[in-house]
Structure formats: C-alpha cells, structure tokens
C-alpha cells in the first residue's frame, strides 16, 4: 500500500463519517484502501473521473459519465467525494436522497429540468441501440410526460420527478451500487 498511506483512519474520523453518511462503517475501510495509490495519504489522494468510471461497478453503467460529473468537484474525486457517492447509492440511503441525486444525474443539459432533450438521451442510452424509430421515441416521451408532467410545461421539475418516483416501486431497488 506504500509508505504514505500507512496513516490509517483514526477512530474519531470513523465516527464522524458514520454520523454523516448512510454508508456502513466497515466498507469505509475497503474504499479507503482502494483509493490510495502508493505514496499518498488518503486526504490528498485525487482520482480523475475516467479512473472512477473504469471501476467495475460503474464500467457498464450507461449513465456513468453523469454520475461522475454530479459527484465530483471540478472533475476530480477526493476521498470524501467517493464516500458521498457511495453513501447515496448504498441500500441504507433514504429514498428522497436518491431521488434528488437521480434528478441531477438525469438532467443532461443541466438546466434544472428534465426536458424532452434529456428524455431522448436517457431513452437512447437505456436502449443502447441506434435502430429505434423516431415515432417510438416520441411516443415514449409523450407517455412519460403524460404520467409525470403535472403542470403541462413539457418538462419535469424536481417536484414532479419526486412525485412520480415515490410511487415507482422499482426505483429504490434499482438505484443501488455496492461499493
């Protein structure tokens, strides 16, 4: 593990993380070990988004670039950013926390709303194929907006997204990553 990372986490720090995160204590150790490259203490270690995107848990995820963008600061991941990400995706995190982060992840153009452009990108990435017909795409988009767009402005705001995701039975189960 290298000389610099021989500083292990003190108990108070562990306690602190335990209070601030939804992430179980034992796995913090493992994440910490994964993080450190030789010669760096964990406080100073930084990883780039590409490195994190190549982790096995994120490698096949169609939304990995958005995940990395939302959780990183200036496209670099510090140790605490990783912890924050792991905390949101853990199974103990509460549903509304996951819903908020899901909204940020799905908002591709970052205008604060999930509009039709975002929906198109989401559907294309989910299906991962280029042979989807235009009218099918539009039909799917219209169905989503029918169900979720309460004020009929053609976009989903956070409140509307939250409203429809709390009724969704699959969301909490599927929005989990085990780090």
């Amino acid at each position, binding site marked *: 593990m290298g000389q610099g990372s021989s500083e292990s986490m003190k108990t108070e720090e562990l306690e602190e993380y*335990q*209070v*601030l*995160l939804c992430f*179980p204590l034992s796995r913090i150790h493992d994440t910490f070990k994964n993080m450190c490259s030789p010669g760096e203490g964990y406080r100073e270690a930084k990883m780039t988004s590409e490195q994190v995107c190549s982790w096995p*848990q994120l490698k*096949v*995820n*169609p*939304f990995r670039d958005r995940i990395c963008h*939302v959780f*990183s*600061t200036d496209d670099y991941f510090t140790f*605490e*950013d990783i912890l*924050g990400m792991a*905390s*949101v995706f853990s199974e*103990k995190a*509460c*549903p*509304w*926390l996951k819903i908020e*982060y899901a909204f940020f992840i*799905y908002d591709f*153009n*970052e*205008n*604060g*709303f999930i509009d039709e452009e975002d*929906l198109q990108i*989401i*559907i294309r990435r*989910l299906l*991962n194929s280029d042979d989807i017909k235009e009218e*099918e795409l539009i*039909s799917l988009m*219209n169905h*989503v*907006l*029918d*169900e979720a767009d*309460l*004020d*009929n*402005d*053609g976009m989903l*705001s956070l*409140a509307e997204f939250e409203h*429809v*995701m*709390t*009724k*969704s*039975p*699959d*969301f909490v*189960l*599927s929005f989990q*990553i085990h780090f």
Partner: protein
Amino acid sequence: MSEAGAAREPDSGGINDNEVFLPDTNHLPPTVTFLQELPSYQSMLRRRPSTVRTRDGQGFVRRSPVESRSILEGLGVESLDRVQSIREYPLNMSQKRQLRDIQEANTKYLSGWDQWKQTRSKSWRKFLDETKELSSYLELWRHDIRNIEGKFGTGIQSYFSFLRFLVLLNFVIFVLMFSFITLPSAVSKHGVLNGSYVKVPPKSIEPQCTVYTVSGTKGLIYFYNYIIDLLSGTGFLEMTSLFYGYYTIDKVQFNVIKYNVPLAYLLTTLAYLSLSLIWIVKRSVEGFKQSLIRDEDQFQSYCNKIFAGWDFCITDINAARLKHSSLQYELKTDLEEERLRQKIAERTTDQKLRIYCLRIFLNIIVLAVLSGCFYSLFRATVFSQEKISNDSGKPNVDNLLVQYLPSMVITLANFIAPLIFSLIIKFEDYSPAFEIRLTLMRCVFVRLANIGVLLFSLGTRITSCASEKCTACGYNYKLYPCWESRVGQEMYKLMIFDFIIIFAITVFVDFPRKLIVTYSSWKAFQWCGLQEFAIPDKVLEIVYGQTICWIGTFYSPLLPAIATIKYFVIFYIKKISLMHTCRPSTRPFRASSSNFFFLVVLLIGLVLAFIPLGLSMTHLRSSKACGPFVNFNRSWDVVPYTIHTFPAALRKVLNGIASEAFAVPFFMVICLVMFYFIALAGAHKRVVDQLREQLVMESRDKLFLIRKLTEAQRHS
C-alpha cells in the same frame, strides 16, 4: 391530460392566448432562463451539491462562502419534518460538516429537555445502526445474492431472495413446532420430567378402534427395507417423532406447571399458520409504502420503466447487454400493447361475438384438461392406497413405486398442463401481458388444486367404510387405524419426490443438454438451445412445495425441518443451474412486480392450506389409536374442553365474545369503519384531481405571463 398535446407542440401556428409556446425558433432560452429565476427553482438550487451552470452562460450561479453559510444556516434552523439526520441532506461532505457544526451551536439555545431528547434520539439511532449492521452480517447468502444481482440484475435476484425468505420461514416454523410440541413429548417419554400418557375413556369407544400396530418394525429386517422405509415414511420411521402417532403424551409436569400437550399441539398449528400469514402480508406491503393513491397500474408505468429501468448494480458486461435488450423488448411490447388495446376497442360486434364464442369453447377445453388431470389423480391415489393396504408387511421396490404413484401423476400433470395452456392461450387473442397473467393463474390453479384432489381422495377413503357407515369409530379403522400419520406420510412422500425431481432434472436433463449444445454441432440441438431460466415456473414449483409443508406440518411436526434443508439445497442447485446450464430469460422480469407475484401466489397456497386443515380439525373424527387427541371427538374439541376448566368469570367473558350478541355488533362496527375509510379515500382522490387541474392552470398562467414579459422586454 388530453390537453397536454396542445401544450407540447411548439409550432401549432398563430399566436392565441391558449398557446403556451411562441412560434419562434429560439423561444426556449428566454423561457427557461425566466423559469430559473423563479423562487421555486432557486430553492431547488440551494439543494444542489455542486455548482450550476446554464447552457449559454446566463444566470451563472456559484455559491460564495458567505452565501453558503447563510444558506446552510437557513437549512439548519428550519426543520424539514421528513429529514431526521444530517446524512439525509444532499450536500457534500464539507457542507455537511458545516451544517453539523451549526446544528451543534444551535443546540445551546434549546432547553434542557430538548437537548436531552436530542442526545437520546442520537444514541438510539446509533444503537439501531449498529444492530442493523450486525444483523446484516448474519444475513444468509448475502455475498451469493450480491453476486447474482451483479451478474443478472434484480429480477433474478428477487427469486433467490424469495428462496432465502422461505428457508427462514420454514426454520422458524420448525423451531416453533419443535420447542412447543416435540421437546416436551420427548423429554417426558425419556423420563426426564414427569408426564402422563393419553388415556382413552373406556366406555365411550369400541375396543377395535384403539388397535394400532406398525408393520415391519419387528424381527429381522433387511437393509434395503430401511431405505424403502426412509423414502416412504413407513416402518421404523412411522413411530418416530416425525409423525403424529408419536405424540401420545397428555400432560407434562414441570414443577408446578402442568403443560397440556394436546392444547399446545393445536395452538402451535394455528400459531404457525398465522405467523406465515402475517409475515407474508408484511413482506408484500413493504414494497408499496410509497404509493398511496394508485389509480394507474404502477408496475406498467412508463416512468417506472425508464427512470428506474436500469439496474445500477449490474457489473457484468453480458448482463448489461441483456438488460439493454430486455428493456428494448419491454418498451416495444408496451407500445405494441397500446396499439392492440386501440384495436380491441375498435372491434365490431360481430368480431366480439366470434371471439367470445371461441374463448368459451377454449375454456371448456381447459376445464376438460383439468378434469382429466384431477380424475386420473383420484384414481391413482385410490389405486395406490388399495395396493398399500393389500401389500402391507411386505415392503419391496414395486410397493415403493406404487406408493409414489400419486406424486408421479401430480408431477406429470404439473408438467403437461402448462404446455397445453400456453398452446391454447395463443388462440384466445388477448393482449400479451394478460396472456402471461392468465396462463400463470391457470398453472397456479392446477398445481394447488392437485394437492386438494389428493387430500380429497384420501379423505373419502378415510371416512368411507365397507358396510357399517363407520359408526364404530367415525372413520375407517380397519384400513387407517392412525389416519393422521397416513396423511403425514403422503405429504412426506410428496415432499421427498418433489425434491428428487428438482435435483434429477438439473443433473440429468440440464447438464447433458448444456454439454450437448456446447460440444455438438448438429443444427437441431443448436436450435433447441439451452434451458431458459424461466422464473414463473420455478416459483410455482417452490410454492407447491411450501403448500405441502404447511398442510403436512400438522400431521408431521418435523416436516418443516425437512423443508428447510430442501430449500437450502435447492438454493445451491438453482444457483449452479443459473450460472452454468441455463441461459437467462429473454422476457424481462422486474424485481418489484416479481416480488409481488411471488408473495401473492404464496398467499394463495397458504389459504389453500387452511382449508383441509380446518376441515380435518373440525369435521373428521380424530383417530382413537394414536396421537394426542384420543380423548376428544375432534381435534378442535380440546379448546372448548380447556375453556371449561377456566374460572367462571373468564369463561363467561370468552363465551360472551364467541356469542352472537357480541359478533353482530362487532361486525357492524367493522363495516362502518371500512365505509369511513372508503369514503375518506374517495374524498382524497377528488381533492387530488382538483389540485392537479389547478396546477395545470397555474402553469399555463405562469408561462403566459412569461411570454408577455418577454414580449414587453423585447418591445421596450
């Protein structure tokens, strides 16, 4: 939502007051920037974890340190009721630390009582967290199920979680039965504690009812007899604590307490049935805590499929590819179904009549197939029972085959009937989703009704005597001196055979198939392909086994232990089968709807288990030659008898509760409460609809005003 179409078409020509969007190519940026200046957007912004930039650089919002502190102060002081701790805020770590410091600084201003409450709730939360973490280590197969989830997605993982749930349920039932029934009886029989045996009151019973000998336990016995006895529950196994006949202890003296074993037997049976019911209902409700007002089918919602469609836990590239293709299939099928629904709505009366006639005809065929199955099962059971009674005392392999005849017929019927059903349903012209559901329901019915037919045929044989109409003992004492043990044996055989079949199919059919498909180059085999890991069939197998366990536990108290071991081994068999010999199903299976489906089918099985048990406890005469209920006419009679021994006041209260004077007003009160809740739900639904309409109007007003403002700005 029918006016939604107008709102979303950007160029529907002409400016009128109803149109929301300008027929202008760059209409979007101004509207969106305006929307971003609204207070509602700003409040959402405060909750963003990192900086926000808009597309064209306008409205660049970056929090300065001073601003964040004030924002965090705002967050810290106001109490959001649903947020209980810092970890539930969507902020990054340094902001959470600041928030925590602010909160701790604020606690100085709280009164002593509030401070104490806060510290108490904090330590309570910590304690809960630690226990949860410890219990997650004890969770069975956690690592295996995680692996499966990563490689195959949450749909298949839900099947294995279901298996784990059944192992736990059976283990708990076994612990219950063992500690309340088997342990006292065994302890008393071996002389550790004083106990009295059940005594038949001599005057009320004919002596021939009490004769009960177990064949094949005396004298020189060959080794293979042991194996046959083990497989069919006869011989040496019949007198062990596995079966009802062993429990002849009446009361166990434990210091001052007299432990009433027959009462305990009955009450423990009711207890495990209620425990199963409560546990299953609790599990099925857990998935629905969030959805309160459900006017649409939540499983079929497009938002659910698109936003929650991807399993973020998948780590395997093949699983990812499979997930993509199954999502594609699912969404295309849903669109297809929309089209079909429209087509169905446009059917003419002629077509409708034709289709209904066809459906009635095909349903008659289905009924004919079912009757065929049931009749053949009935005859097989009767034949098997006759041969057993004739050949008793000479166990040999033929006898074994005859003993397993009902099990074999059931397995055959469970295999053939679904094939016929899936063939028939193609002609009935339903929508794809309904087809799947109807076929599943039919298969469930076949599997569970088979058990019912078996028990019914056994029941008729037990209660029908050759000549005297069974007035002597109330049941056929010549053939079935201890009929409960016999029923227990049948259930035991069914369970063993089920287990053998599952094992045999995996080892002798799936593995060779995989070897052939991998190594041979014949086109025919390649076209056949590997066995598909079809979840519905596997679930029905398991529910069938569990129903047998529930019914059989009354007659064979240690059966849950066998069921636990069986499901434990089946987990590993299925896991190996999934990883190595099967290909995953192309039809998508969502975790939430699968969970619901599994639990509904399990519940149907449980309800079916209630019926024969209830009937046998209250209508059939309990056997006089064995078991704890020889003193009583029927098993249920032990309860009124015990109530008679209670003090007079308690007896009066209990009689009062059971009488009509209490039951009718109670029923009326329950009905009133139910009507109240139905009315409340209706009122809420109306309010929700009204609020929705208001929201739509508000949004229209807002966009109209924005448009006017933009126009005014442009002209000025």
